[in-house]
């Protein structure tokens, strides 16, 4: 019964979204009146999709195996959390999650958008409804999660064991919140293009949504990376896999969008470029979610291997993305540019940031699609893997990181680069000193390590130098400095904190790439091995049953260089329903570094043990967390909260000649 209720709710949401889109595009000129109706429509869509989603979750939680999706992806013995997360561990369910987040964002605009000009709000909600209608229609007609099966089997086939992890509960919702959040920026861009009206108030409206989405995407990617790190068993955290690239491209484009929207909000410049970035960021998000599933990119990756489904997805992407760019080509030239500035200025620095980020997006896109195109056009198969991306991406990021600390210290319109350099002297000197010192102590295993360290420290210290500069620390009494720092707008703090986070991530990447150590050996219980000063003794080995798996587990004692000891456990599991094995590594954190221990398969009469020491590896994800924290902090900035877009719109209209 509840399944049918959910199914019906989703169909109703589809109908309302379709009508909203038609009505919105037809009558947006009537302004506030149609906007009010669309706002309520958006909230209604949200409620209906929430009902559908809840019905699906209920079926999984109660192990209702008359639902085909539950049969294929659930098992009655699975712990509750994995029953719930199993809802989106498959194509149909993840589509519904995607739509659920889409309508949640739409409802937020409907609820909080009352202060927007009516015609703009109507167009935004119409575009949002069009997206909802398109993807709900796709789900209902090609990937219906509510299909029943008769007769119902007694037991389900279980979820893939690798997915039975807290990672599945967190990673997709965060990632999707990031992807889908950019739909709001997309809708604002479409609204601006249709209405032909775009000003600083528009940027002020778009920026919080971009910021929120970017923050979720940052968390989602970091979570996915850490999940891969601990689950896949050898401690790799980034593989330049097409699927990862697909999530990284919207992040880079979204980062560029955040910075260009800043220029637009403050200086009324870069309008066309900001609109373009809004469209491209969401297009890349769509590509991230769907191209990898269409079966065209890497067939082995796809949930939806059904070719007709792939074709529908591709047509849908072509219509949405192609339509948006067609509209852009048609209308963008009519948008008026404003805000003059000298090349050396805050604007100039932010444009440089956009240049490198956009080029990186382009390079990754080319690298990801190139093998596919080459195969189709020349019939030659090649691989484009990690070495290529590391080189290309690294070469593009290095100059960006070099200029990054200058940006926040430059003035708008026209700036003095020498004065900024003077303020950064201390940070630069400290970065050089530490890079040399650490390279001397740690030994240089890869030649670029000192350069990488230098860049990481430079960015991190540069961010701190900016705060010191703004607080005039050391030049006025300390109490006054503190007062100045506390009084700084939160956006200034979040800029510095986000840049600091980036520096930390760079340092983590460099440290672990350059100074990781590895030991592959065979051990029997009672024997010990040593790596980088850590002594690992293999205490015991046994077979233990888990809730829905059998586990071969090894118990170890690790003695750190400082003499402290810790007990830890690494195991290999075989899942009952599927017979699939997984490995669960033992990971012990010492400061920012980790010891990563994996129990391999038995080799003759002993066990293969792999141990890695990963110095400062946690900085990679801590840096991302710091960046995300900065995103949330910036969202609480008073200027974004108050917003007052109408007033700002009037002021902008008066100010602009």
């Amino acid at each position: 019964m509840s399944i049918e209720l959910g199914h019906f709710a989703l169909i109703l949401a589809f109908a309302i979204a379709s009508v909203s889109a038609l009505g919105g595009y037809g009558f947006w000129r009537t302004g506030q009146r149609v906007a009010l109706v669309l706002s309520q429509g958006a909230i209604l869509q949200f409620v209906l999709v929430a009902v559908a989603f809840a019905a699906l979750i209920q079926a999984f939680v109660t192990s209702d195996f008359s639902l085909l999706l539950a049969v294929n992806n659930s098992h009655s013995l699975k712990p509750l959390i994995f029953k719930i997360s199993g809802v989106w561990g498959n194509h149909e369910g993840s589509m519904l999650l995607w739509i659920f987040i889409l309508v949640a964002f739409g409802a937020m605009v409907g609820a909080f958008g009352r202060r927007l000009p009516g015609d703009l709000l109507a167009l935004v909600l119409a575009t949002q409804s069009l997206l909802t209608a398109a993807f709900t229609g796709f789900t209902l007609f090609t990937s219906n999660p509510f299909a029943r099966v008769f007769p119902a089997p007694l037991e389900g086939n279980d979820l893939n064991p690798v997915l039975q992890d807290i990672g599945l509960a967190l990673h997709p919702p965060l990632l999707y919140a990031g992807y889908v959040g950019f739909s709001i920026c997309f809708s604002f861009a479409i609204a601006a293009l249709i209405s032909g009206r775009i000003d600083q108030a528009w940027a002020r409206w778009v920026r919080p949504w971009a910021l929120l989405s970017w923050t979720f995407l940052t968390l989602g990617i970091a979570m996915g990376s850490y999940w891969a790190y601990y689950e896949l068993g050898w401690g790799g955290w980034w593989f330049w896999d097409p699927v990862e690239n697909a999530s990284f491209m919207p992040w880079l484009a979204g980062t560029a969008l955040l910075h260009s929207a800043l220029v637009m909000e403050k200086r009324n410049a870069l309008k066309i470029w900001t609109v373009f970035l809004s469209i491209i960021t969401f297009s890349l998000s769509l590509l991230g979610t769907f191209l990898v599933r269409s079966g065209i990119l890497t067939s082995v990756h796809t949930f939806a291997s059904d070719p007709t489904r792939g074709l529908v997805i591709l047509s849908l992407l072509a219509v949405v993305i192609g339509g948006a760019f067609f509209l852009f080509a048609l209308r963008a030239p009519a948008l008026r540019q404003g805000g003059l500035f000298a090349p050396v200025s805050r604007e100039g620095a932010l444009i440089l940031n956009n240049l490198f980020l956009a080029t990186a997006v382009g390079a990754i896109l080319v690298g990801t699609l190139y093998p596919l195109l080459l195969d189709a056009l020349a019939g030659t198969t090649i691989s484009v893997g990690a070495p290529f991306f590391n080189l290309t991406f690294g070469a593009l990021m290095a100059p960006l990181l070099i200029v990054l600390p200058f940006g926040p210290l430059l003035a708008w319109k026209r700036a003095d680069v020498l004065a900024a350099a003077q303020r950064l002297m201390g940070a630069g000197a400290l970065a050089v000193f530490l890079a040399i010192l650490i390279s001397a102590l740690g030994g240089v295993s890869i030649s670029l390590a000192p350069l990488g360290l230098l860049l990481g420290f430079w960015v991190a210290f540069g961010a701190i130098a900016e705060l010191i500069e703004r607080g005039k620390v050391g030049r006025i009494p300390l109490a006054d400095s503190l007062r100045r720092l506390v009084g700084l707008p939160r956006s200034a703090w979040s800029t510095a904190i986000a840049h600091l986070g980036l520096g930390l991530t760079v340092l983590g990447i460099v440290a672990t790439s350059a100074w990781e150590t590895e030991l592959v050996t065979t051990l029997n219980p009672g024997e010990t091995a040593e790596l980088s000063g850590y002594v690992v003794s293999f205490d015991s080995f046994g077979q233990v049953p888990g809730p829905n798996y059998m586990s071969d587990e090894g118990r170890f004692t690790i003695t750190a260089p400082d003499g402290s000891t810790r007990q830890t456990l690494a195991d290999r599991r075989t899942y009952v329903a599927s017979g699939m094995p997984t490995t669960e590594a033992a990971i012990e954190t010492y400061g920012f570094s980790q010891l990563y221990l994996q129990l391999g398969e038995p080799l003759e009469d002993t066990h293969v043990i792999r141990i890695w020491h990963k110095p400062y590896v946690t900085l990679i994800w801590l840096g991302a967390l710091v960046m995300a924290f900065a995103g949330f902090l910036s969202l609480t900035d008073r200027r974004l909260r108050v917003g007052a877009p109408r007033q700002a719109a009037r002021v902008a209209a008066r100010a602009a000649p």
Partner: protein
Amino acid sequence: MTWLRALMLALCLVVTPALAVNPDEILPDVALEQRAREISAGLRCLVCQNQSIDDSDADLARELRILVRERLLAGDSDEAVRQFLVDRYGEYVLLNPRLNEHTVLLWIAAPVLLLAGLGGLAFAARRRRPPAGELSAEEQAALDELDRSLPR
């Protein structure tokens, strides 16, 4: 989307529950083993999803790892080992594509994009620069006129 890859890896695992480099494969010569690892990291596990043979657990990856070490023991240079594998499995086995007529567009893509971006910026800056520099004779005359008319 990592769970999708996780899914793939799981499929790999099902085929062969063996894991990456095994102790019995490691060469006693440390320098040679180091070279083997570096070469392995750049070779694709052909049956897996975007994994190098150094990371992969599939049987084929193990065979390739052993093959790499055999060639190294036979005295091949790094390049000769790679060429040996390319001759057997095609360019597809190299994770870092070599520069040739098929990959030239790939390799120049990033620099070309960067240059195009810089060119676009220069163009936009030129077009948008306010009329600066010398005043025309007419403007100068008008300014002089204005100057004279102002009370001193």
